[in-house]
């Protein structure tokens, strides 16, 4: 897996409290754990708002859900908010069904 690309995808937003992490197409594989680590790293840096950008993610499978649950859990432990942005309708419905939307803001 190309971690350099992943790091390139992740950059703090203009808001100094907000970090943006691109979900990309790694999310649905075991290599997607890198995204979870990336989010944890941002939380460790002190970001209080984590935006996961799904603009380049078409489908999310169970591995992706599990990884996102890990992100939600880490953010809850750090007292940070999670925002899922640019989700397609199918993913929003799936997240609602599985309860993820109870823990995040959909933007």
């Amino acid at each position: 897996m190309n971690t350099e690309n992943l790091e390139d995808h992740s950059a703090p937003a203009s808001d100094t409290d907000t970090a943006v992490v691109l979900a990309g197409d790694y999310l649905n594989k075991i290599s997607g754990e890198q995204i979870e680590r990336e989010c944890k790293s941002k939380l460790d840096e002190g970001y209080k708002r984590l935006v996961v950008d799904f603009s380049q993610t078409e489908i999310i499978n169970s591995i992706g859900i599990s990884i996102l649950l890990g992100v939600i859990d880490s953010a809850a432990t750090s007292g940070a908010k999670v925002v899922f942005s640019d989700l397609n309708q199918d993913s929003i419905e799936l997240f609602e069904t599985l309860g993820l939307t109870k823990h995040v803001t959909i933007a």
Partner: protein
Amino acid sequence: MIDDRQKLIHAFGALAELGQEVSNRNSFQETIRTSLHLVSGAIGIMRAGVARYSRFGHELNMLAVRGLGDDFPLSLSMTAEDERQFLTAGLNTIDIDQARVLPFFQVYGHSFESKRLEQFVPLVVRDEIVGALFLGEKATADAYTNYEKEIICAMGRHIGVAISQRNLMAEIERHSEENRKLVDDMRTTYNDTVKAFATAIDCKDKYTEGHSVRVGKYSEIIATELGWNPEEVEGAAVAGYLHDVGKLTVERKIINAPYRINSKESAELNRHPGVGYEILLPIHHPYANVPLAAKYHHERLDGRGYPDGLYDREIPYIAKVVNLADSFDAMTTDRPYKARRPAADVVQDLHRSAGKQFAPELVTAFLKGVLKELTGEEKDRRFRRLLGREYMEADGLMPLVRGTLNELTPTSPITYIGRDQSAVH
């Protein structure tokens, strides 16, 4: 209704992926991690773990965890009652309320409750516990439905099979390692026995003391130079060590005769290849053709050998190897009726006999071995140890061997580059 249908499609997708993951040849750890993601993601479980059961230690050892934190026990001891209850449950989930009565809950209950674990799934394969799933609350915070429990159990079967396969593989590897050690021990015993036999054979002939051992070592050198694999090289050495085993039945006075033996004695002596074959045949050798080497090591390419007067391709290859090694030793050691010949004479004789008595490529291989030692390319001074330093350092031996090597293959001259980097043509 839409929710249910979507849930079902999503969960079945996870189940299909899990089946594929388990049948893939990924690393076991990766398979387990992926499996745990698939179970968590299929239902939307916040925290989960998968453990492997050790039937020797009676404990569940965590293989992968999600969100359980560093303080969650990585190894959980099980009592006989826990095991019984797990087996009774089979692959059905055990709710936390049901689990409270289990002995292991008395020990680990605090950890389970602090992590909000709600379900335990014993992983049972062929009536044996192979592991367990530990599942926490769902992201919806709702209770697990029966349909979700069924999906989890179906996924648990896949994970159980993956763990069971891994256990079997580990057992096979352990047995394989034990067998390998056993074979190594047997091979060592066999080789020691062979060497003891060679010494016994050589004791019969005071003039050719060490002959069998030397023939074994020369055969080994030839096989090495031919590029044979280590097992074949070892086999060639054994064939050399045992080639004269038939001499054990020949009268000592004939073997030790300090004169050229007469035709009757010669006939008696010439029986030894056949007798050697008879001795070696019933033994199960770990190497091929050891008995044939004994039987045919006096055959020649031109059909003038004995006992059967075979020609070239009729002679087993290992016998040709031993024949060359045997003849070389005969030429390079003192006999009661004949002193050993100078090294240069022997090289010339090998050259002349290539294609008549000896297979030319074997002579080439043998002389390459000699040349490697003369040039220092071969550090192990095998020939010097067997023949003496003075013998091997005779004047003009190195250029003679080089020249012979080139002439032995006139159609494709050997370019030998020795340590001094001088090409020989």
